[in-house]
């Protein structure tokens, strides 16, 4: 009992503290695994049973692989991949932090205990970005649907007991599963237009609201933004017939991705000694 209490006390204090550090970045840099090999999903199990999986002959073998991975996950020794990134004492300290954080996080996942308390930190947002859905019908007409995260009139509204669906709507921009789920739900609720046309697709747009600054007249700032038009291209498209959705990258995201890719591919500047070696080989000036 005392050991268990000691462990949970340690977990409570250490995990809350580690969540305040950049331990997840250290984990990424040092390539420390976040969790053991995941449990097989029903799709994977069916594939194995049908003999279509090249790695596993039976479902039992797949579960065994997960169990084995749990044992190796609990080993505190760094993997070869990780060792390649560890050059200094600081890296070893970061490894220790990342290792403890991920292992406690894993136990937390198993028991349903999370010790991350970010509530409104480190800053509170000054703008409100919310998704809005556009329903496109077979006769070419379209209709906009305001979700719970966007009051139809920002100057006059109130909401009680809607936390659960509201929480989902607030995560639409970040979470693929939430977008797909909400789209399926909208497809069911708005299957036909008022004129009887069938719903063909759903798009989601971002709408940005500037929140009144301290000292500003809140009413006039919000009143100007009533039924504000969505900005830019849709970030999500859902086809009702196939039931499949697609995340659409914005131009900004695409450019950022390309820039990152180009930076990763760019050769690093050679050091002066390397330059001298290259010059010597090709016969150029030292």
């Amino acid at each position: 009992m005392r050991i268990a209490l000691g462990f949970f006390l340690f977990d409570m204090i250490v995990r809350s503290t580690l969540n305040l550090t950049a331990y997840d970045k250290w984990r990424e840099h040092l390539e420390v695994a976040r969790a053991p090999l995941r449990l097989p999903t029903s799709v994977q199990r069916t594939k194995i049973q049908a003999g279509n999986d090249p790695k596993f002959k039976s479902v039992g073998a797949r579960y065994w692989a997960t169990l084995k991975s749990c044992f190796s996950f609990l080993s505190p020794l760094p993997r070869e991949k990780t060792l390649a990134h560890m050059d200094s004492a600081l890296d070893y300290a970061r490894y220790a932090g990342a290792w403890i954080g991920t292992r406690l996080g894993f136990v937390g996942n198993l028991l349903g205990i999370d010790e991350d308390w970010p509530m409104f930190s480190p800053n509170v947002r000054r703008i409100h970005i919310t998704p809005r859905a556009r329903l496109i019908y077979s006769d070419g007409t379209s209709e906009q649907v305001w979700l719970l995260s966007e009051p139809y009139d920002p100057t006059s509204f109130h909401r009680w007991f809607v936390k659960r669906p509201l929480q989902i709507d607030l995560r639409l921009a970040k979470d693929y599963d939430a977008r797909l789920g909400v789209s399926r739900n909208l497809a069911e609720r708005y299957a036909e237009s008022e004129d009887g046309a069938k719903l063909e697709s759903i798009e989601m747009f971002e709408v940005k609201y500037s929140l009144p600054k301290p000292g500003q007249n809140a009413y006039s700032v919000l009143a100007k933004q009533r039924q504000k038009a969505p900005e830019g291209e849709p970030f999500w498209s859902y086809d009702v017939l196939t039931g499949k959705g697609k995340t659409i990258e914005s131009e900004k995201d695409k450019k950022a991705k390309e820039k990152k890719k180009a930076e990763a591919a760019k050769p690093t500047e050679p050091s002066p000694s390397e330059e001298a070696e290259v010059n010597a080989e090709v016969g150029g000036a030292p």
Partner: protein
Amino acid sequence: MKPDWQRARTALEHFWHEPVRAERLAAFRILVGAALLTDQLFQYLPFWGYLFGPNGTGSFALNEAWMASNWRWPFLFFFSESQWVLGLWFLAWVVSALCLMLGYKTRWSAFAAWLLTMAFFSRNTNVKNGGDDIVQIHLFWLMFAPVSGTWALDAKRRPSEFVEPWAVRLMQIQLCVMYAATGIAKLKGGLHGTWLQGTSLHYVFNDLGLVRWSYASLPIPFWISAPLGYLALAWEVLFTLLVLHPKTRRFALWYGFLFHIVIYLTLEVGWFSFYSMAFYPVWIPDRWWRDDWPVWRTKLQRFASSILARPLLTPRL
């Protein structure tokens, strides 16, 4: 006079081993059970179709890969898409919360409530916020803590005036850790962050995705929201120090109680306030439960009986 180290040791032994009054944990159990039950009835049930219906956001097929990747193992048994089966699971969840509140088969009901809460959260993880992390912690400890010594149906068989204190201590430390961590996380915004600039509460009250009503309908002046923001930040960061001394503890807890009430009244963050306030009875000292509670109980009983004795409809002559 004992040397310092011996006094510290005695204090530590007292902290972890001196039995505490059973009411502290019983009140905690009742509040958690009541909060979970009302959460289920007011926040889940009216939106069943959106959350867990046939075309809801919590369908198994939609979330299975996420659950497997994140080791949310309840998906191994909580996989049915049938509305009947899901409805029965929900009913079992509601019954477990009710039994927990009443203290009937307390350990088993706490186990069922913990398991099913985790199962429903895993199935549709997007419905979760910080308050739901708190209730998961509550339910986990309720499986082991001696919470049915009094005010429980189980207490009829085995009543106890005092119980082991470890659960009380763990809950107290958890609350300190929670407030300290969130306070320090806010300080990470630095001098140019909204918390140290004093604009945080202003923007929180303006957040169109969170507030209960439009700021335009009830604007709170900056000269009120700025000092309140600083006070909230200082209280969170210093909570652990404040509760060390009985005099400052009283302020810290009353402030916390009002803080959570204000959060509930102004922000649509669900039952976060109620789950957080469930921690508070464990802080009420034994002395109060022994001396003051019987007086309050008599007053409450008189008040209740006066209401019950009043006829619902007064006949008109």
